[in-house]
């Protein structure tokens, strides 16, 4: 095996459980010249706000940022689909020299006139601040003129990491919160935060809550609507999924409106059930909710258990590697994979923090590799060394797995299959099974070299 060098500066972002004292560096700006799998501030804002389907999303900058994020996610809408269009001021050289404010203003006016959105988000890209555009002022002016919220999103790519983009998005969203009527809202009500309706996941989750007798005021941002977000401060509880994408908003709502929040995950049987039970427990004043939750969980689990057991028999003992954006998803995936009898040999994330990695360390078996802000070389080195049979990640990780004859499951925003909730767990298990157990891998040279496949004649 050709050795893959690890940079000295990167060694402290890599931990092998059991062999060494735990001391993992994280939360830093990526090292120049390494091919980080992270994106930028803009990316963080764009993923959080993207699914709001009746809002205008205008990307202020040259064409690339808009072109690469046009309709790339599987975030579904039950109504308007404005979010699936890609709008950009497409700045040209003369705009860069003379400033883009006038173009931005014209752009906003014509888009609002044409599409009649309920609100508009204006994303700043790298050069906007540098050429000195006062985006906030343009937004204020157009907002007055058109009588809809026009919200600047301070998402210049270089001003931090993806996490700062989450924060910028939450700050923009927070300006909408508190603007709508709350009189009709039930005392047993929640907002779903950090759920983006990939493949219809928010609908699955929402249906559980409705069956439990809990009203969902706003889903942020999956299948999102501006008016729902405006009245979200009327909910009794924020239920926050995902590592950190929307914790900022939950914190802000707690500070201003006193809305408490809990953190949950909807991946895997264990975490989905825990999420629903935690919400039911929060509404202890209404024991009927808990009773309905118990019935729901029992019913859902018993409906999918037979097929899950069959899949388990087929994938048991296989080794999995996980590399995802937020570490919170990795926790759920480890549990879900263990349920299927699989071993996790690598777990990593783009944006985990100290507490996240401590949790990961505690969850993982000895020998497991834990990676922060990894790159293709490191991921390849360890999936090969650990002889993974499955890699769970996003599109950028997929070819790394396939080249070495390793199965792959897409758990990122581009997927079109819901993996959340109980039926999501079944979809996940099916996908794992279909990739890991495919007969094509016996032709893969790396598998053949390892004595697990067909050698070329």
């Amino acid at each position, binding site marked *: *095996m050709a050795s*893959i*060098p690890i*940079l000295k500066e990167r060694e402290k972002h890599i931990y092998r459980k059991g062999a060494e004292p735990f001391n993992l560096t994280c939360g830093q700006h*990526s*090292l*120049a*010249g390494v*091919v980080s*799998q*992270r*994106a*930028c501030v803009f*990316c963080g804002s764009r993923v959080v706000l993207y699914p709001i389907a009746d809002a205008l999303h*205008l990307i202020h900058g*040259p*064409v*690339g*940022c808009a*072109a*690469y*994020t*046009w309709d790339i996610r599987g975030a579904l809408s039950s109504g308007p689909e404005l979010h699936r269009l*890609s*709008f*950009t*001021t*497409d*700045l*040209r*050289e003369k*705009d*860069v020299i003379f400033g883009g404010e006038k173009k931005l203003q014209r*752009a906003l006016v*014509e*888009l609002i006139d044409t599409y009649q959105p309920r609100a508009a988000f204006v994303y700043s*890209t*790298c*050069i906007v601040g*540098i050429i000195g555009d006062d985006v906030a002022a343009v937004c204020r002016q157009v907002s007055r003129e058109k009588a809809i919220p026009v919200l600047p999103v301070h998402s210049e*790519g*270089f*001003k931090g*990491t993806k996490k700062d983009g989450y924060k910028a998005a939450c700050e923009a969203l927070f300006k909408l919160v508190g603007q709508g009527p709350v009189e009709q809202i039930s005392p047993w009500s929640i907002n779903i935060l950090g759920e983006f309706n990939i493949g219809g996941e928010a609908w699955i989750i929402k249906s559980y809550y409705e069956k439990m007798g809990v009203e969902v005021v706003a889903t942020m941002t999956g299948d999102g609507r501006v008016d729902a977000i405006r009245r979200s401060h009327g909910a009794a509880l924020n239920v926050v999924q995902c590592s950190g994408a929307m914790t900022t908003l939950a914190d802000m709502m707690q500070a201003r409106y006193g809305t408490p929040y809990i953190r949950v995950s909807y991946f895997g049987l264990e975490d989905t059930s825990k999420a629903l039970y935690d919400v039911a427990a929060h509404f202890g004043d209404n024991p009927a909710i808990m009773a309905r939750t118990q019935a729901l969980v029992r019913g859902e689990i018993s409906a999918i258990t037979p097929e899950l057991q069959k899949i388990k028999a087929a994938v048991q003992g296989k080794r999995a590697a996980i590399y995802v954006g937020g570490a919170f998803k990795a926790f759920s995936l480890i549990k879900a994979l263990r349920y299927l009898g699989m071993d996790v040999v690598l777990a990593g994330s783009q944006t985990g923090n100290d507490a996240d990695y401590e949790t990961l360390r505690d969850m993982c078996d000895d020998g497991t590799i834990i990676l922060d802000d990894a*790159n*293709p*070389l490191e991921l*390849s080195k360890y999936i*090969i060394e650990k002889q993974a049979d499955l890699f769970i990640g*996003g*599109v*950028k990780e997929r*070819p*790394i797995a396939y*080249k*070495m004859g390793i199965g792959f499951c897409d758990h990122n925003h581009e997927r079109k299959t819901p993996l959340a909730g109980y039926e999501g767990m079944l979809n996940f298990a099916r996908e794992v099974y279909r990739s890991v157990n495919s007969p094509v891998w016996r032709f893969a*040279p*790396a598998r*053949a*070299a390892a004595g697990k496949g067909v050698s070329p004649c």
Partner: protein
Amino acid sequence: MLKPSPKAPKFTVTRNACKLCTPLGAALVFKGIRGAVPLLHGSQGCSTYIRRYLISHYREPIDIACSNFSEQTAIFGGGANLKIALDNIRRQYDPEMIGVATTCLSETIGDDVPMFIREYRESCAGEDLPPMVHVATPSYQGTHMQGFHAALRAVVDQLAQGGAEAGRHVNLFPGMVSPADLRHLREICADFDLPVVLLPDYADTLDGPLWTEYQRIPEGGTSVAAIRSSGSARASLELGDVLARAKETAAGLLWKRFEVPCHRIGPPVGIDATDRMFAALAEISGRPTPENHLRERGRLIDSYADGHKYVMDARAVVFGEEDLVVGLAGFLGEIGVVPVVCASGGRSGHLAACIAERFPDHSQKGIQVLSDADFVTIETAARDAQPDFLIGNSKGYSMARRLDKPLIRVGFPVHDRVGGARLLHLGYRGSQQLFDRIANTLMAARQTASPVGYTYM
């Protein structure tokens, strides 16, 4: 002359861009050079988004490094980051070349990248450094095609050397074509017994087999040594009508600096255009067109005869990069299909003239040319034009779906099918594949629309 005639009022905003940003084109060129690592001088998102976009089409690992600007970098300049990036790339990848492309961010703050590279070279005196080629690719200037051709020019400018006498080899600049096209061009040159410097050549780096051992930089590509020799080639062949009208091109530079004779022909799609390429190769090599290609040409004409009635007077909407559109339009005209809308996000200013040259009767035929067009504009024109099919990249799918017309996928990107890298467009063989796909698409449409459902068509 044929004037661009958008019927929709010109919008300030670009809606669903039919183009990508300049650094993407440059990165693609660098992927076609043996042992090269592309490095984008800008924000982390630039490289990550471009990687994701390229990987979704080629389905191969594509490492593109980034100097990863932070806020401090944007204030104090990117020199330090660039040097760290160069260092880290050398340590991790041991590259044979590093291709540095700028971004809108580094260009806007005025980074002097050639100076940074010079300083880096000086600081590494005595070390064995790979060539570091710099290209300016601010994304507010042009499209990915400008980035592509600028990178070619930069590579040749910074690497090519003259020779005492002309070599046997020919330089071939094919434009942004598929790996399958590149392989076919190599085969054609081999059949003429012409050694070829094909630039870029990502046939293997972006469409290779699975690996036995991990490859830090995928095998394949044109070597730096071969590029150096381009200054002593017996001739250059540059494919592209729009390109031929550009002020400066790689082949033009080789002519000016080293007097390498330059043949400029359109993309070899269809009989006429491919004949011109074979005539040029025959002239350069002093050999007649090889028998196997004449037979392929014969079979293509035979299939034209077999299928002509199915395609005659069909109406097509053609979109994509300007040179691809010109090549396809010429081919469509040759088989009796009317390219009623010829559209590109490019804005060289030459598209209309190139189409007019192919179709002297364009006004009778009602051919509309759209330059600097986005997909909303193209769709509006397409709706009026009542096409039978659309031909272009898969970003036209949502338009095709709304128009309820078949989309024949060609070019880049093909994100919604497998095999984008294996699509063949060029030469008699590529034309054959296009012809069969077009004829079959139209036959299938007739068959589907028939109330009878004939099994004979």
